[in-house]
C-alpha cells in the first residue's frame, strides 16, 4: 500500500517505522483497528495513561491562564498533586513567562509534511526557544532518549517552523509577510534547547541543539521519509521481544498473550522498546 500524498509524518509514526516497519504500515497506512491488549495489566495501564493525560491537561490549563489555586482544587489524587506541586516549583525557577502550550508546528521535508505537537515552547529572554516535554513514565537513560525520534523531530521542526515564535510575534497582532521575516529573525539552531521533565523524579534531561545536529537530523529524517515513500512491503521487526507489547501481534502471528506491564516499564526505561502508552492524540479535529 502506498503512502497518501497528504500523509502527515509525526515523531510517533516515524518511531513506529524505526521500531517495526510492519507496525507503521498497519497503523498508519492501512489504519487497521486491532483492539488487542498491549499489556496484561490493562486496568493499571489505563490508570497510568489517565494520570498522564490529566497531568498534561492541568499544565495546559495553567498555561492558558487558569489560576493555579483553582486548578489545584480540582486535583483529587495524591500522585497528581505531588507531580503538580513539584512541577510548579520547577517552572518557577526554570521557565520564563512567555509560554506556548500545546503548540503544533509542521514543515515540508522530502516532499512530505512533518509535524510536531509540543507540550510547551517557552521563549527565553534572549529570544531562544525552550521545548519542554512533560513525562509521567519512568526516566530512561539520556543516551536512549537522545536517539528517540521525538528528540530528533521536535527541535528540527521548531528550527524550521518556529522562526515567528522567536521573533516575538506570539500575539499575532501583525500579519507577517515573507519579506518581513528577515534571515536574522529565523531561529538559529543554537537558540533551541529541549528539556524532558520527569514528574515522578522531578528531574530533567536536557539536550542542546546546533547546526550540525540540525543538518544530521534533516538528513536522517529525509532518508527515512524517502524510504517509506518508496517501499511497498513493510517487514515486521526482527526484535520479537517488542511484539509482546504490540497490539498487532496476533495479526503477525507473533504470540498470544500480552506482556507484563512491569516488564514494559523496565523495557521502556532501559531498552529501545517504545509504545504509544503515554502518547497523547497527535491530531485533534
Amino acid at each position: 500500500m502506498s503512502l497518501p500524498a497528504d500523509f502527515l509524518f509525526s515523531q510517533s509514526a516515524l518511531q513506529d517505522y524505526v521500531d517495526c516497519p510492519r507496525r507503521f504500515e498497519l497503523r498508519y497506512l492501512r489504519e487497521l483497528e486491532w483492539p488487542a491488549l498491549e499489556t496484561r495489566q490493562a486496568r493499571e495501564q489505563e490508570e497510568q495513561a489517565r494520570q498522564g493525560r490529566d497531568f498534561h491537561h492541568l499544565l495546559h490549563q495553567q498555561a492558558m491562564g487558569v489560576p493555579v489555586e483553582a486548578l489545584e482544587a480540582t486535583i483529587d489524587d495524591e500522585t497528581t498533586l505531588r507531580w503538580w506541586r513539584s512541577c510548579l516549583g520547577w517552572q518557577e525557577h526554570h521557565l520564563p513567562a512567555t509560554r506556548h502550550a500545546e503548540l503544533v508546528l509542521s514543515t515540508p521535508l522530502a516532499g512530505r509534511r512533518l509535524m510536531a505537537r509540543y507540550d510547551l515552547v517557552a521563549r527565553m529572554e534572549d529570544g531562544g526557544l525552550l521545548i519542554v516535554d512533560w513525562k509521567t513514565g519512568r526516566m530512561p537513560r539520556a543516551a536512549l532518549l537522545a536517539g528517540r525520534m521525538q528528540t530528533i523531530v521536535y527541535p528540527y521542526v521548531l528550527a524550521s517552523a518556529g522562526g515567528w515564535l522567536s521573533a516575538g510575534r506570539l500575539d499575532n497582532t501583525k500579519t507577517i509577510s515573507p519579506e518581513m521575516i528577515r534571515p536574522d529573525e529565523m531561529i538559529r539552531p543554537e537558540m533551541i534547547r529541549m528539556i524532558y521533565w520527569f514528574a515522578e523524579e522531578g528531574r530533567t534531561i536536557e539536550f542542546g541543539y546546533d547546526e550540525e545536529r540540525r543538518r544530521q537530523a534533516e538528513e536522517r529524517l529525509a532518508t527515512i521519509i524517502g524510504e517509506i515513500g518508496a517501499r511497498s512491503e513493510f517487514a515486521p521487526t526482527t526484535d520479537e521481544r517488542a511484539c509482546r507489547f504490540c497490539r498487532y501481534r496476533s495479526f503477525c502471528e507473533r504470540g498470544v498473550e500480552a506482556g507484563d506491564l512491569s516488564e514494559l516499564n523496565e523495557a521502556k526505561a532501559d531498552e529501545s522498546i517504545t509504545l504509544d502508552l503515554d502518547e497523547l492524540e497527535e491530531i485533534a479535529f
Partner: protein
Amino acid sequence: MNLSAEQQSIIESPTGVRTFLRGEAGTGKTTAGAGRLRHLLETGVSAHSILVLVAQRRLADPYLEVARDPAGRAGAEVTITTLGGLARRMVGLYWPLITNRLSRSFPNRRPRFLSLEMVQYLMFRILGPEIDAKDYFNSVTIDRARLYGQIADNLNKAAVVGFPAESIGARLTAAFAGEEERRHIFEDAQTCASLFREYCRRYNLLDFSLQVELFCQHLWKFASPREALIGRYRHLIVDNLEEDTPATHRLLSEWVPSSQSALLICDEEAGYRKFLGADDISALGLREACDREVVFGRTRVMTRSMRALLAGVVGAMSDEAAEGGGLERSERLRARRAIGHTPAARSRFHTQMLDWVADEVAGLVERKRVRPERIVVLAPILGDSLRHSLVSRLEQRGVETWTLRPSRALREEPAAQSLMTLAKLAHPDWRLEARHRPGRTDVERMLMCVLEGLDLTRASLMAEVLYRREGLQPFTRVTNGEMRERITEVFGERYDRLRAWLEAFRRAGEAEPLDIFLRRLFGEVLSQAGFGFHQDFDAARVASNLIDSARSFRQSAEGIESRFDLGNEYARMVDEGILADQYEPRRQGAGPRGVLIAPAYTFLLSNRAVDYQFWLNIDSPSWNRRLYQPLTQPYVLSAQWRAGDVWTEAHERESSREMLARVVAGLLRRCRRKVYLGLSRYDERGYEQIGELRVIFDYLLRDLSPEERKVEASPEAES
C-alpha cells in the same frame, strides 16, 4: 485550477477586509475559501492565527487539504473546527472559572463530556422509570430511543437557538394552541428535559447542549478565554454559515469586527440542517459585521442542459406551475437531455428500478469510461436492505461503491452481536433474564463469525449439538463419528480452543471490565490464525468500535452508577437498543472510492459536485416528508419563530414544499451532466406510492411528441 476573476479577488483581498460571500451552490465559494486559506499561508500570515469554522466535520475537507499540503510553508497549524469542537475545547480548559454554573455538590469535580449514547443511556435510567410511573407520553407510539433522542434534541435547540431550556414546552404548546393532546406531550417533554438537565448539573455531566450553553453564555463573557480566542485567531474563514446555528452566528457577530480579516461564506437556498437548529436567516445577519458583501452568481458546475433543467424544475415547483416547467420549447428540449429515467417496462417494481439503476451505472463506467467517483446514487432514506440491494447489484456488475450515511447501529453488526454473545456465555454470574440470554440462533451466528470458514450448515449443527442452557459443551465429548466428520476435526479443534478460553476465564472468576475482557478475547483467540477476525478487517473495526463504546460507557458511568455491574448493564442496554446504537466512530471513513451511495441530505452536506446523479424512488413521499417527531418541531424551536404564531397545516405544506425545492435545486446545482430518475410504482414493501417529487418531474416529462422523444434519446449536452 482555473479560477474566475471574482474568485481571485476574494482570495487576494487585502488583510483588514472582512467579506461576506454568498451565492448558490456550485458557484465556487468554497474553492475561493480554500484558495483564501492558501493565499494567507503563502503570504506569510501565521497559521497559528487562522481559524476555519465549519458547520460539520465533513465540510472541512477542502480546508484540511490546503492545511496539509506537503509543499505548504513551514509554520504552525491552522485550526479547523466546529462550534461544538470549540465549545468542548474551551469548556475543557476553562471550566474552573465557572464552577458556580456546575454542580453545587461537586464544584471541583472535572466535568464529563457525554457522548450521544451516554445521553441515551442516562435518559433511559433517569427518565425511563419516571415516564413509566407517571404515564408520560401515553398517546405517543414511538420507541424509547427515539423519544429520548427528541428530548435531547429539544435541549440542543434551546442551547443553539438561545432560549431557556425551561421554556421548551411553553414555546411548543403556544404554537399548537388548542391541541389538547399535544399540550400534554409538550408538558411531558418539558418535564423530562428539566429532569435530565438537573441530573446533569448535579453530577457535572455535559451533554452537547450544556457544553454550548456554558461556552456561549458564560465562558465567552470571561476575559481570558475570550482573549485566548479573539487574541489568537485574527483571521477567520467560516464556510456554510447557513448550515450553522444562531449560537455560532452570535459568537461571530462579536468576533468578526475585531478580526484582522474574515471571509464568511453562505450558501443561498440551503439550510439543510434546519432540523438540527441551522438557521440560514440568522446567518445573513452577519453581513452587518463585514465590510463588504460579494455575490457569486455564475455556476461553475452545471452544463447548459442542467441549467435548463433547473429552470424547468423551479418553474414546475412555482405556484403557477405550467407544463414543461414553463420553459420555451428549445429550453425544454435542452432540459430533457439532462434527464434519464426508468423506462415504463422497468418501473413497476422496486427491484426492477434497482436493476435499471445498476445497469445504467455500469454502462456509464464501462462504455462511457466515466470514473466511478463522478457518479452518486441518492435515496431519500438509505436503509440497510436498500443499501445492500444496490451494493450487491453494482458489485455483480464490477462497479466499486462506497457509502456515506449515518452508520448502521453498532449493535446490528454481526461481529458486535457475536462479541456480545461470547461475553454473555463467559459471564453466567450476570444472571441474565431469559430474554437476554443467547439463543441457539445467536450461538450459530457467533460461530459462523468467529470460526474462520465455517458455513451455515456446520454452524447450525454445532449450535444444535454443542450448545446447552448451561453453556458450550466440549467438542471432544461428541462421540458420534458421523457427527464429528460432518463438523470436521479442524472446526472442532478451533471451537474447543475458544471454549477452553471461555472456561478458563469463568473459572478464574476475575472481575474484569467488559471492554478489557473483549480486548483479551479478541487478541488471544478471535484474531489468531484460524479465527474469524484474523483476516476480516471490517469485523476487527467493528470489534474495536464496540470495545470503545463499552469502555466509554464504563468510564462515564463509574462514579455515577454504583447500583449495577457495568458489564452486565452494558450487555442488557445493548439488547434494549440503548447502547451501541448511536455510537460515533472516532475515525471518519475514508472516501471517495467508487460510486457513492448516500441519502440525499448527506450528499448535500458533503459539499461536492459530480457528473451523474441517480435519484432512487422519486415516487416516494419520503423525499419531502419530515420525520415523525411528536415531541419537537424544528420550525417552532427556531430563532425565526415569532412568539404568538400558531403552526397550521398551511405552514406544514409550505415548509415541506420549500424544503423539497431546496433539496432538488441543491442536488441539481451539484450535478454537471445528467440526472437519472429512478421510478417504481411500488415501494420496497410493495405499497403503491406517489410523492410530490414525481409530480414535479411529470410536468417536465409528460406529453412528448415523437420528435421530442427522438431528441430525448440523443446524448446529453456537454457544454
